[in-house]
């Protein structure tokens, strides 16, 4: 009998301990932004947040902005000014202004990784226009859900294979990696569509050093064996749809010179033809087109010493001390051989040369 009060006491205590209501703020007292814009204005971060605001019947999207020495400071100021607390837990897209990207966002990214408030899975995007006008345009054209930007990059929604997808942790990794850089998509607000995709920014050690266009980004995605499924390629003879891609690499390291042979195997289906090209003509034409495009891009990348393709990964046998100098010494010397092999899987409902 004596133990019953004790048990009751324990149960009561655990009610207080286990409910998890410590300093809790209910969900209606929280603001959960989904897009965060960061710009630099005379040594101050300028933060824009896009917050969906559920009303009784409709969803409204609010844009709030604030400046501060650090991101947390700006968010803290915003939190103080707003009637609810800002929780960055659900930020899905981080838009960085081009100027800041050029200056370098190393501390910014490290901060995101350290505080853990922003998920390391959030996407990083570069904005070609000023963050102020980008957000106001976004708000004018956006759908009531406020998820346009997120959907644009979602593989299950609006993503297409010529858009680079890079997350916070990947940017962080590239800052500290010897052999790897990243490409971030560049966007601006569009006229007829909400977002206009302009290609990718090449980020080296957290700093934007080069710009590549959409077609080149496609090759980077193909190189990383991201699916390029659904991309349409137009040539003089025909237009094809890519339905599959794989890569093969052979690396050699002879006399301090790295050699890499990469082969891209593409599977395509025929969409349109111009005139009467043969199967072989179409294949050669596509192969030369892609190879030339790749070589052009590669020369550009090699000049900027940014290893977006992660080619250093294929030379991990180089001792660690040497690998530290990969970008500055070995990468510019790299001899790259890029080959494309195309298979036309089918010709559609019509026979080739049948019309």
């Amino acid at each position, binding site marked *: 009998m004596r133990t019953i009060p004790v048990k009751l006491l324990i149960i009561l205590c655990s009610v207080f301990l286990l409910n998890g209501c410590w300093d809790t703020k209910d969900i209606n007292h929280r603001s959960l932004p989904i897009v965060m814009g960061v710009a630099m204005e005379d040594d101050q971060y300028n933060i824009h947040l896009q917050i969906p605001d559920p009303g009784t019947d409709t969803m409204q999207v609010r844009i709030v902005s604030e400046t501060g020495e650090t991101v947390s400071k700006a968010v803290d100021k915003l939190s103080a000014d707003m009637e609810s607390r800002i929780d960055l837990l659900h930020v899905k897209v981080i838009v960085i202004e081009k100027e800041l990207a050029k200056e370098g966002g190393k501390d910014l990214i490290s901060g995101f990784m350290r505080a853990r408030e922003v998920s390391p899975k959030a996407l990083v995007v570069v904005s070609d226009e000023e963050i102020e006008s980008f957000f106001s345009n976004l708000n004018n054209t956006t759908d009531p859900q406020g998820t346009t930007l997120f959907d644009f990059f979602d593989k299950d929604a609006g993503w297409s294979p010529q858009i680079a997808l890079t997350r916070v942790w990947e940017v962080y990794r590239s800052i500290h990696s010897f052999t790897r850089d990243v490409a971030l998509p560049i966007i601006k607000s569009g006229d007829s569509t909400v977002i206009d995709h302009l290609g990718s920014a090449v980020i080296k050690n957290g700093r934007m050093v080069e710009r590549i266009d959409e077609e080149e980004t496609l090759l980077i995605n193909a190189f990383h064996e991201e699916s390029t499924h659904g991309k349409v390629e137009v040539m003089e003879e025909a237009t094809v749809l890519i339905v599959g891609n794989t890569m093969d690499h052979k690396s050699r390291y002879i006399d301090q010179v790295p050699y890499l042979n990469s082969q891209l195997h593409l599977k395509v289906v025929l969409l349109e033809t111009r005139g009467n090209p043969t199967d072989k003509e179409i294949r050669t034409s596509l192969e030369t087109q892609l190879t030339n495009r790749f070589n052009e891009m590669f020369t550009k990348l090699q000049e900027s010493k940014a290893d977006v393709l992660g080619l250093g990964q294929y030379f991990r046998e180089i001792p*660690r001390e040497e690998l530290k100098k990969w970008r500055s010494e070995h990468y510019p010397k790299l001899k790259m051989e890029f080959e494309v092999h195309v298979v036309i899987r089918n010709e559609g409902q019509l026979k080739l040369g049948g019309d």
Partner: protein
Amino acid sequence: MDKSLHVVLMYLLVHLGLIFFLYPNDIISSSDEGQWLPIAIGLLFHFVLVWIYMKGLSFFPKQNIIHIYSEMGRGFAIFFLLPVFMYLMLVNIIGVRAYSEIITIIFLSNTPSWAIIILFLSISGYLAAKGVEVIFRTGILLALIFIPIIFFVSIASFQNVDWHYLFPLIDDDFHFMTTPSYMKSFSAFIGGFLFLGFTAPHLTYDRKKVLIAAALLIPFFVLAVYIPVLTFGQGTASRFMFPYIMTVDSTYINWLMFDRVTMFFILCLVTFIMLHLSLLLWMAYQIMNHWFPHQPFYSVLPFTIVIFITSIMIIDWKTVERLLWWNSFLQFYVLLTIPLSIYFIGRRRKGRT
């Protein structure tokens, strides 16, 4: 009574709790390349010590190490059991403090650590006061519910692996042997098997099955280090406090309705850690009970109060790290002397009869 399943599951849970938090960082910061070598050496220690310990214990059926030492004489018992008792208390204090801090770093950033410590201590203290059967039965329950989640998360964490990071495979010097972080990593390799000597006569087990459980743990020891290295590369992985947790955090599972799988993963591990703490408390009680026979409640309660006060006094993570480092010496002493002494006492006694 043969309770091999209980013991095996407990063995797995205790080690899983130890593997995923501090151990990956210790190994990654101890060696720049070829991390499999330090892991292999640690595992070798693990297997050899567990084997010697169990072999030694098998000379004394139905006796735990307290009985064995006290048969040798009072001085003998104090000489061996007092360090064990100190070790158990120290591990408890550090464990409670470290894991409460880990929880605040990882997700409960607003909760004061004393609240988390009370939660840890009240649950594990309650289990410990109820006795060994309850602890082991809880172990079965936790294993049934949580091991599938651990398994799922481990597989999902392969998502961003780049196998090129595996190279270079060979680290030609053995400088990792002398780094403090490698010494600390041994708390995962050898910190979890002491309880095997305390369970008799309540529970008995098949030695072979425990060794199989130890073999099952090998992939986890390897993955906890290699998945972060393969995902981020050594250069980046060495910058993280909890590399494995970070890796789990960066996996993106589209079809899962939960955004952060990490939370499930961490909470599962936290329950394993609570179980481990209760086991440590119970072992400490057993030693106390041998010298001053009493009800478990009367020693578990003072223990938890002492642990609570001491761990509150540890104010920052730097102190926790320093304590972990100091503790690694005591740990080596205890976990080398106990298995070896039990083995030699057993051999001698066998020779005599």
